[in-house]
């Protein structure tokens, strides 16, 4: 366990500068944007004095790197500043919405893999036959679909015509979750099926699978134990690496369905140039990416002895 722990620790150390770098970059970029947030807050008919006062109170009169330093220090204590628009603490806004986003994205991701991976494996095993073409055909179809359109169509059919599910908001409990979750899950099932199929095909062609057949092992053992076990390594790692991508999809799906999550918060903040909120959300995303990557690395080391066991100098 010692080697694994050391490996993990190393990865975490590398992660910290990544977060700093990303947020610093964002900070700097935001400062270049035309449009003065103070003016947006203060409105039109305000004296220059008042504006300068406001600027000082928000700390916006300091040089950029000082501002960043203060911001980062505050972030470490959980203080993300206040929204320019609603004056509420950013941490409150984000915290209130984070569960909604997780509630939507995490189950969607899990379900996508649970359904998608077996589909991909089945397609790979039946390579060249009809089930391969059919599965991959359907999967290509969903993979080529824009998520927002799928959302709208599902809304149309199941929300408006059939009236089975509500089409916006999160108020009706489980029912409101169905359509947005479906919108997320279907294209992702297609994606994971494709990856699973590719990896499985790759493994099935490997020499060690041929060795397993040559030993006279029963086919279930060869396929499940020898082939699948190896194919699942990259597939599982991808699960963790894809987690951040889901956030991108969340922005769109949450906006379409008026789902009160972090994605729609980000969208609205960008529209309103509400920088503290944007920075806060992006910070969370950056942390999430780093955590996911680290977890992915650790998982791949756990599953693949080639990574965690060093060759001896025999």
């Amino acid at each position, binding site marked *: 366990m010692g080697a694994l722990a050391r490996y993990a620790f190393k990865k975490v150390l590398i992660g910290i500068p990544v977060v700093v770098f990303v947020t610093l970059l964002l900070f700097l970029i935001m400062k270049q944007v035309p449009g003065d947030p103070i003016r947006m807050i203060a409105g039109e008919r305000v004296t220059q004095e008042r504006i300068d006062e406001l600027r000082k109170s928000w700390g916006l009169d300091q040089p950029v790197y000082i501002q960043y330093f203060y911001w980062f220090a505050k972030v470490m204590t959980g203080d993300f500043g206040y929204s320019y628009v609603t004056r509420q603490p950013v941490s409150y806004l984000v915290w209130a919405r984070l569960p909604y986003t997780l509630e939507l994205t995490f189950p969607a991701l899990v379900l996508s893999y649970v359904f998608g991976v077996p589909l991909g494996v089945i397609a790979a095993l039946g390579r060249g036959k009809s089930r391969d073409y059919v599965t991959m055909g359907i999967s290509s179809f969903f993979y080529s679909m824009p998520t927002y359109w799928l959302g*709208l169509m599902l809304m149309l059919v199941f929300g408006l015509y059939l009236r089975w599910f509500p089409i916006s908001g999160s108020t009706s409990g489980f029912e409101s979750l169905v359509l947005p979750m479906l919108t997320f899950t279907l294209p992702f099932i297609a994606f994971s099926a494709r990856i699973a199929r590719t990896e499985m095909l790759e493994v099935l062609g490997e020499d060690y699978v041929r060795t397993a057949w040559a030993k006279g092992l029963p086919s279930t053992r060869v396929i499940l134990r020898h082939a699948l076990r190896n194919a699942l390594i990259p597939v599982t790692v991808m699960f963790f690496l894809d987690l951040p991508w889901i956030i991108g999809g969340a922005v769109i799906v949450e906006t379409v369905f008026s789902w009160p999550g972090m994605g729609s918060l980000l969208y609205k903040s960008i529209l309103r140039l509400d920088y503290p909120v*944007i920075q806060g959300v992006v910070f969370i995303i950056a942390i999430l990416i780093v955590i996911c990557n680290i977890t992915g690395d650790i998982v791949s080391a756990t599953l693949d002895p080639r990574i965690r066991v060093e060759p001896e100098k025999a």
Partner: protein
Amino acid sequence: MLALKSFKETLLRLLQHRTSFAGLLIVLTIVVLAIGASVIAPRGYAETDPVNRLLPPSGQYFFGTDVLGRDLFSRIVYGARIALWVGLLVTFIEALMGVTLGIAAGYYSGIVDKAISAVTDMVWAFPPVVLALGVVTVIGPGLTQVVVAIAATSWPAFTRICRAKVQSLVNREFVLAARAIGETDSSIMARYLLPNLMPSILVVSTLVLPSAILYTTALSFLGFGAQPPTPDWGAILADGAAQLRIAPWIATFPGVFIVITALGFNLLGDGLRDILDPKLRI
């Protein structure tokens, strides 16, 4: 190196392969639609006609009309032009950036490689939509801006593949031989490495293009891309979302075309990959 001799042979194999043949047909249809838009579309895409607003599909208006009375069919046909043009542009920029960086990283290794790889990994890990939104926030909305934004997010696909391939080639004898006779690095990269990468680059491009279209229309849908009255498919969909109850056709048809276009390129790309470089992982 491949056993393929020429463009002709690739084309022949392409036509024989089921998936790529289907993809090719679809792509050609869309290309025809785009090129012949002015001939095929019965009306202009910005022709408003408030009297005939929000009409369902009919013989006169194939896909119905939108809130300003514009013919949806014409708008979508012109939209094909935008989609293809934007897709090609984004893919081209990404390829340019990504391939250059990838070859450099694979060839030079050492600190150049580490630096490029670090940046590539970071950009790759970041959700493209968020990154693109960030870029658009800074440079403002608009179709050109969206092209830049999306191109800035997905070039790692090219970099990773080129880097891997160059790494496997760089120690081969023909490179060492070229170095030995004094060829410059850039000459080696351009004359020996790049041609070997072309098949893979082609496959990646064909598979990246539909993503580019999907992302750019997504950004237009969110309001950051094409400005009215440009008939970008994503923008039309945004209009459609607002009218979903009353005029569902506005939201339906552009999406259908996006799916078909993306599907066509994806199938074509899958087929090309089977023919040119089956081991490619993307």
